[in-house]
């Protein structure tokens, strides 16, 4: 992929500022091949092209900052837009329900979407902002998740420094598999609830 090539080339050539910028933009929601970039950064550390501590610190700060930008944008700009849309097209009740879910499951959801189901990360920033999820709690759940994500991916790249692409491929696919599995569990639970009432009455 050409964008992957260009991103990694830029990281190699210009180092930390580019790594910082790429992760910041990706955390807001631009779909960059960020897993590969982080794993590759770990490999570059191992090869002596970059230093471990600055990579982890810069990447963590960028990721946390990116989250706040996504959250802030949706909280202060997105909300009024959604209100205007629901006023015209309806669906305000659904938004309300989504907000309730977001507030109820927000914390662990934010934490796990930072490092385990990363595809949901920017999406949850958006919904958390929309739902006016308390900003302090958003940081408390989000920041450790992001640091964990950075450390995990960079260290995997460091340990398997000669297998960067395989690692990124495995991590990416596992992330999607977990997401699909979570959706399947939720839907499966709904189906079970559909069949259950009669059996409890029959028993």
């Amino acid at each position, binding site marked *: 992929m050409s964008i992957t090539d260009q991103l990694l*080339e830029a990281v190699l050539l210009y180092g930390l500022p580019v790594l910082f910028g790429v992760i910041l933009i990706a955390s807001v929601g631009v779909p960059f091949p960020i897993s590969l970039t982080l794993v590759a950064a770990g490999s570059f550390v191992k090869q002596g092209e970059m230093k471990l501590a600055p990579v982890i610190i810069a990447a963590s700060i960028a990721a946390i900052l990116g989250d706040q930008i996504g959250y802030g944008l949706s909280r202060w700009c997105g909300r009024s837009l959604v209100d205007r849309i629901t006023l015209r097209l309806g669906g305000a009740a659904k938004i309300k329900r989504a907000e309730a879910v977001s507030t109820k499951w927000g914390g662990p959801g934010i934490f796990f979407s930072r490092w385990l189901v990363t595809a949901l990360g920017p999406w949850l920033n958006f919904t958390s902002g929309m739902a006016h999820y308390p900003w302090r709690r958003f940081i408390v759940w989000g920041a450790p998740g992001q640091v964990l994500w950075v450390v995990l991916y960079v260290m995997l790249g460091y340990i398997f420094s*000669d297998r960067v692409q395989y690692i990124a491929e495995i991590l990416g696919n*596992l992330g999607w598999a977990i997401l699909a599995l979570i959706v399947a569990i939720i839907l499966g639970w709904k189906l079970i609830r559909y069949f259950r009432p009669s059996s409890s009455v029959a028993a």
Partner: protein
Amino acid sequence: MAINVELSVETDPQALMKKKLTWRQSVVAVAFLMSLSLAIFFVVRAVRPMIYWHYHQDEPIRGWMTMGYVAHSYRVPPHVLHSALGLPDKPPDKRSLREIAKAQNRSMDEIRSLLLQAIVQARRPYPASPSPPTNPEASP
């Protein structure tokens, strides 16, 4: 929700099974099967590189990689790759292969095959991989 209330009237489970799924429930069932198949699909895709890794060891050479990375990944001394592309061994070339290809007016396929050739040569137990032509003291 409303569905449960409606269904709780049913007492015989078999009758319930036969009962037609409502439109909404069918959508949930289809979505459930789809998400389950997607999960399996991605697990397979995650496992595939592990198997490939186990049997083949080497990952494909890509444009973003540097000579240093390819040498590291394929476990060959960097000077072997440098000389394969006619580049000086020192200082280590930090450009990506894509840039080198552009500078040398070669396609990535060409670069890839040249490097693979050199790697195969260097890995052979016979003859021993050649020492760097210009810098004998260069560390591998």
